[in-house]
């Protein structure tokens, strides 16, 4: 079999929970992790006689998303009922959008790596639409025999379902698209992006065809693949499976499949013959939603700077490399952290970038912490970088100060100063003590002195090291260099 003959066609449907306090159609809380059904109010439960009223913030968030992917925002959109019977769907229908979604015709550019040193390829993925809808509850199977328990706390949580065009051609592209989308919704502050808790979930539509073929093959939909790694594995598995089926003379059946993270395989879900007759019609309890040009522009004005724009600005404003700018704008919180270190320290932006993307991110990675709960806050790091800049400490001593801050040896915005003072780490910039140290080192090492003066220039480094050691590393390296040169001269 030659895999090179085949091409995958992939479209993703992403369900993104909106970060509102209350549900899309009622005043019940949306907080994760509450005791079962304690956030299921009368509307969520679909009690007889209750009615939905749209959450204005959910609408704004959907509009923000649309603006961020350069999409059309519908001036008039409509909620529709999608009918199916399932115990986690209390009303027997889901309020969703069908013919007239709030967002349509957008796109997202992804970057595909061409190796470490080459420029990445930019590929544009179309976003067909994004529509608002309510989430369903959860079915719990553990702890019961032959019975399922239903928790409706999640039911009614606002979602946007983001549907891509079938523009994606590989698992790697799918992951790049998903990561980009994830970064965007978190940046926008419309989703917490927590994939474990189900705030950001992905269904993958996959088909394969022989290269050069223009028609699409029959697709399968793999449901709820809830990490970037699983998406990659599920799609890769599904592509291989479909090619195998076709090459061995079989046909692909249009079906819904479920990914099993333990085996890395997908399997067909039990489906009912009537499952796809959703009987959509406009929800008569809700009126058309109107977003005027004024509304749209008012919402646009509240949008944060988006990742691409921020990256551009970081290269121009701070003179950072594209690589550094990409790293530092990976998350909005990290970018904010970096910018406050620059501002508070008044130090060189590149120096700040090195500390944030190097030592700080390395340390957080080791600790398994997010930038949001870094033990070294931006003012603390700024305080330290400022001392490097004003030469109070050397870069080398700074590493010790940073470790001490990380270890919690001092707290507060002036932690660096406190540590420098307590440990006596202030750089020696007076000539007297440095000269005394040089004299001492010269006296202790007559042979090396003679060799140096005899032409072994390399030994200069040895003397620098000895002087630094004699001053516990506190001597200003430039001063040591300068004074040593004079003293060692024959």
């Amino acid at each position, binding site marked *: 079999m030659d895999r090179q003959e085949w091409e995958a066609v992939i479209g993703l449907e992403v369900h993104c929970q909106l970060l*509102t*306090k*209350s549900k899309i159609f*009622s*005043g*019940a*809380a949306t907080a994760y992790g509450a*005791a*079962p*059904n*304690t*956030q*299921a*109010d*009368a509307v969520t*439960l679909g*009690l007889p006689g209750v009615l939905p*009223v*749209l*959450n*204005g*913030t*959910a*609408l704004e968030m959907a509009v923000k998303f649309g603006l961020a992917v350069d999409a059309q925002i519908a001036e*008039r959109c*409509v909620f529709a009922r999608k009918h199916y*019977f*399932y*115990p986690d769907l209390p009303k027997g229908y889901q309020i969703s959008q069908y013919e007239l979604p709030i967002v349509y015709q957008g796109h997202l550019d992804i970057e595909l790596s061409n190796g470490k040193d080459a420029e990445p390829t930019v590929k544009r993925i179309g976003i067909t639409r994004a529509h608002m809808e309510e989430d369903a509850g959860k*079915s*719990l*199977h553990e*702890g*019961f025999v*032959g*019975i*399922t*328990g*239903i*928790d*409706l706390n999640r039911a009614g949580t606002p979602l946007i379902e983001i549907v891509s065009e079938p523009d994606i051609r590989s698992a790697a592209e799918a992951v790049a698209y998903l990561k980009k989308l994830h970064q965007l919704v978190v940046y926008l502050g419309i989703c917490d992006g927590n994939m474990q808790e189900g705030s950001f979930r992905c269904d993958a539509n996959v088909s394969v065809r022989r290269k050069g073929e223009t028609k699409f093959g029959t697709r399968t939909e793999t449901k709820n693949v809830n990490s970037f790694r699983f998406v990659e594995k599920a799609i890769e598995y599904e592509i291989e499976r479909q090619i195998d089926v076709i090459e061995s003379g079989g046909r692909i059946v249009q079906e819904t499949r*479920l990914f099993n993270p333990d085996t890395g395989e997908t399997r067909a*879900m*039990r489906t009912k013959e*009537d499952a796809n*007759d959703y*009987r959509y019609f*406009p929800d*008569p309890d*809700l*009126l*058309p*939603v*109107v977003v005027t040009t004024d509304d749209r522009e008012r919402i646009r004005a509240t949008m944060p700077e988006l990742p691409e724009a921020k990256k551009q600005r970081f290269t121009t404003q701070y003179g950072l490399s594209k690589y550094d700018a990409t790293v530092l704008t990976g998350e909005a919180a990290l970018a904010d952290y970096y910018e406050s270190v620059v501002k508070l320290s008044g130090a060189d932006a590149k120096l700040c970038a090195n500390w944030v993307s190097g030592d700080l991110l390395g340390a957080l990675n080791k600790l398994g912490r997010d930038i949001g709960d870094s033990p070294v806050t931006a003012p603390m790091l700024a305080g330290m970088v400022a001392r490097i800049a004003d030469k109070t400490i050397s870069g080398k001593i700074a590493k010790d100060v940073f470790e001490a801050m990380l270890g919690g040896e001092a707290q507060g915005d002036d932690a660096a100063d406190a540590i420098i003072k307590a440990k006596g780490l202030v750089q020696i910039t007076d000539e007297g003590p440095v000269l005394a140290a040089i004299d001492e080192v010269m006296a202790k090492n007559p042979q090396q002195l003679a060799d140096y003066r005899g032409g072994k220039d390399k030994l200069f480094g040895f003397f620098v090291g000895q002087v630094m050691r004699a001053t516990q590393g506190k001597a200003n390296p430039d001063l040591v260099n300068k004074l040593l040169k004079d003293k060692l001269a024959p």
Partner: protein
Amino acid sequence: MSLSIEQVRQVAQLARLALQPEQAERYAGQLSAILDMVDQLSQAQTDDVAPMAHPLDMHQRLRPDAVAETDRREAFQAIAPAVENGLYLVPKVIE
């Protein structure tokens, strides 16, 4: 428009209504009579008419995003047919 017994069974399945065999036959006759009456609609000239979903020419009002409900699980589950540990119980769901 007449509905066959098989169509009535399909519709009943979609609507999750258990039908006894003799009911399907009776419903087929009654539903066919209703649909015959409804078929008068096909006479109406509606080529350039916009569908009217709603009698009011208004648009959707928005609710402020605030938590306005408290936990009333006990009251709501007091009228539920089967609950345990705060969960509603149903026969096992197989995916």
